């Protein structure tokens, strides 16, 4: 055991963990909107629209996240047309490519979680709203969405943790996140176990915090 290396690499890994958290939070926020959008499309009565939303979630859940990042980072740059548009400002940055891939990926899982939450809302609750003369829009935003959020909290908590682990793939497109820095230190010192203990410990700490945060929210919004 090389204790000195562990102590020396700790601050480096900790500052890299900040990048991991940044990647995670930005992609979760964008992914939540994407997920909500596609969940609403999924429960649409129009078969074509709901099939389309299903196709999106099927493709993104059925392929590895690594493929998705590579398609966006290496693949999209190949399209000449894209290079001339304003989108290129975003797509030439590995950071944003990773975030787009993560957001689309977590969006697919989130849409499944929210869809099942919407579908488990008892029709009686919606009918009660209607009989009180509340408009459809208000029923959706003030009744359906709050109940769906509460219902989906446990599953969404798992998704946050899975996504946190997923952000490690950003290191494959040159981003120095926690895994990226850990790999760099391992390949320069050839001390994989020590670095794994420190980096893994930081990841476990983040998992622990997220897990308890979700538990706290679950308790707060339980009824």
């Amino acid at each position, binding site marked *: 055991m090389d204790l000195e290396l562990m102590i020396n690499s700790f601050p480096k890994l900790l500052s890299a963990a900040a990048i991991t958290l940044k990647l995670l939070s930005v992609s979760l926020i964008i992914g939540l909107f994407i997920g909500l959008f596609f969940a609403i499309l999924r429960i649409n009565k129009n078969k074509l629209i709901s099939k389309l939303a299903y196709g999106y979630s099927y493709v993104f859940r*059925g392929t590895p996240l690594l*493929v998705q990042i590579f*398609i966006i980072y*290496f693949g999209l740059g*190949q399209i000449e047309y894209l290079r001339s548009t304003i989108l290129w400002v975003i797509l030439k940055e590995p950071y944003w490519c990773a975030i787009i891939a993560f957001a689309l990926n977590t969006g697919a899982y989130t849409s499944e979680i929210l869809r099942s939450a919407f579908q488990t809302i008892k029709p009686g609750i919606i009918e009660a709203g209607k009989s009180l003369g509340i408009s459809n829009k208000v029923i959706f935003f003030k009744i359906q969405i709050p109940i769906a959020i509460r219902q989906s909290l446990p599953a969404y908590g798992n998704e946050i*943790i899975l996504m946190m682990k997923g952000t*490690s793939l950003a290191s494959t497109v040159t981003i120095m996140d926690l895994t990226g820095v850990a790999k760099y230190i*391992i390949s320069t010192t050839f001390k994989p176990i020590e670095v794994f203990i420190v980096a893994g410990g930081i990841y476990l700490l983040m*998992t622990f915090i997220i897990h308890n945060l979700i538990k706290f929210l679950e308790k707060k919004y339980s009824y």
Partner: protein
Amino acid sequence: MEILAFGDTGWGDELFYATLMTIAVSITAMFIGFLFALIFTPLKLSKNKFLNFIANSYTTIIRGVPELLVIYLFFFGGTGAVMFVASIFGYNEYIEINAFITGAFAIGIISGAYSTEVFRGAIQSIDKGQFEAANVLGLNKFRKFFKIILPQTLRLAIPNLSNVWQITLKDTSLISVTGLVEIMRQSYIAAGSTRDPLFFYSFAAVLYLLLTFVSMKLINRLEVRYSRGY
């Protein structure tokens, strides 16, 4: 379609063998995962606090740390560990471990943590009366486990195990960082030499979709088979 031709002119045969490699690694990893689950599920269910602690540490650490980090640990640490063990037996030459074995083992340990949780949940949700009934009938431990508990566990576990299989299958794409030529690595090579990453990575995505689709169909059949009588 010329680019996907079999033989020297296209990448068809290379990608075909890469797909077989992905399947082989996934199945091996899943199997190694089952072996781990076989060891850790009893530890999880044991009344001994210390054994519980060991099993819980395994599943918590593996499920809380990114797969890529675990793979790096095995990729960089595997050779060292094997050489250390070999040096105890007096062998001091350099040993290179096969990328397939390292990869399958790393993914297997990850898959095993998920399988352990699935089996634990399945065994715990079997009605207590089933255990008691088996005792009352005077079945010995062996028959109780294989004739009463295991069939019911499998029925409950298969839907969740199919999720584990999906995770395992997708995780194998990460082994490409170690140089094992599976779908992802082969696409990377092809994309590099043809300068057509968009096509090859999209094709890789299609291959993975195909694998998940076909395996889901097969697992559904298994589910029907094990639900006979319900």
